[in-house]
């Protein structure tokens, strides 16, 4: 009897110990910014470059990828810049959706040509309250590696990227400049941009539907 009780108790202790250890391990493996970026890079370079995937499927997966790993509302707000304040709630929401479509088509087209590259995180730095992880894409054909920088921030317990720079060129920054030019050249302000984006999205979706 005592033997049974003893082993039961030992079992319970072991169980508790196991549980505690698991908890500790979980706490420890909450990913760092660098780990997050490494994961994002691997995913982009391995899954999204799959040659057997149809173009539509690639755009579809790219959209999910963007949604999961980027803080889309924050990026949209940055891209619209000063015009964010002028936009109505409905316009902001529509912009965010159209922007995702345009970016997904652009990236899907570029990733399609990738094969055999590898992604490695080099380091991380803080710039004010921004966390910036720098990495590089190593190429296979002897070409020099491509530098990539992701600015990330914590959204609750998960990391999300708010800026991506490739070869020193920030995608949101470029779009911000492009779209402000569209807004300024249009008579209808933000609505003019949305009109242009709608027809652009329609054209891209007609080619490779992702909806």
């Amino acid at each position, binding site marked *: 009897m005592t033997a049974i009780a003893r082993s039961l108790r030992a079992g319970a202790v072991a169980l508790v110990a196991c549980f505690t250890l698991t908890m500790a391990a979980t706490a420890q493996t909450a990913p760092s910014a660098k780990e997050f970026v490494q994961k994002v890079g691997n995913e982009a370079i391995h899954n999204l470059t799959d040659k057997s995937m149809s173009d539509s499927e690639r755009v579809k997966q790219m959209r999910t990828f963007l949604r999961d790993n980027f803080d889309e509302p924050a990026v949209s707000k*940055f891209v619209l810049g000063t015009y964010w304040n002028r936009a109505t709630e409905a316009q902001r929401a529509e912009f965010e959706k159209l922007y995702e479509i345009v970016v997904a088509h652009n990236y899907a087209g570029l990733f399609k*040509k990738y094969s055999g590259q590898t992604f490695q995180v080099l380091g991380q730095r803080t710039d004010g309250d921004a966390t910036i992880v720098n990495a590089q894409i190593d190429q296979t054909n002897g070409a*020099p590696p491509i530098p990539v920088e992701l600015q990330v921030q914590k959204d609750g317990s998960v990391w999300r990227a708010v*800026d991506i720079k490739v070869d020193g060129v920030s995608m949101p920054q470029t*779009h911000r400049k*492009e779209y402000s030019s569209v807004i300024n*050249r249009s008579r209808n302000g933000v609505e003019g941009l949305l009109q242009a984006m709608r027809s652009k999205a329609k054209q*891209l979706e007609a080619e490779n539907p992702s909806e």
Partner: protein
Amino acid sequence: MDQLCRRLLSLGAFAALLALGACATPPQDPEARADFEADNDPIEPFNRAVFDFNLVVDGAIIKPAAVAYRDVVPQPARDSVHNALENLRSPIVFANDVLQGETQRAAVTAWRFLINSTVGILGIFDVAKEAGYQPHSEDFGQTFATWGIGEGPYLVLPILGPSNPRDAAGLATEWYLDPFNRWMDNTDRDWAIWTRAGLTGIDARSRNIETIDELQKTSIDFYAAVRSLYRQRRAEEIRNSRPTSESPGPTPLSGAPEALPSPDRQEAATAESSAGR
């Protein structure tokens, strides 16, 4: 070449006259005005016209030539052409390394030139790279920038693409001082200068085909996107945050550098602040 310089100068004067007539009117709206000033593109209507012209030339001649070049010539041969062109440009890179006070980079450039011109057979093989001397590029535009000379307003050059007065002056300086060009000019072999320029353009363009296609396909205002890209790339190149190996200055025509990773990449241009918030 002096005759050529005169012709270029008169072309420049003509362009300046045209540009004066094509000044953009600053907008009234305060936010639009802030954008207008940040874009620093006072002759935008003129630049857009040249940009459109460049797109037409690119679509009709340069891109088809680049596609054919990539399709017909096997990769090793194209790499050799690229290496040889890069090697031929080494004296200019070296001069700019020195003028920027970058002695270590200057030494690397000198070693690369010596090794590749001899063991690498006139630069056809980049053996210096195998030996650990990584290539990088420099130009007079970047040197002027490190001397504190501002870029000035945005400028789209016919055929050569995105630029600004500083970088355009850099290009002209390079064209004039380049030892190979001088030698060919002095020996009445101008065709060699033009062949080299043409090859450099096709080589650069052939490394950017899909990147530019994608950018053009997904952008709403391609002109404004390229303007921003050019400035960001230039700023990055000037910072020397990374050795760049490939083409000098702007790629021909649209000259859009990649916005994104691309396996067949090629440097093009750089500037603008980051999007960090």
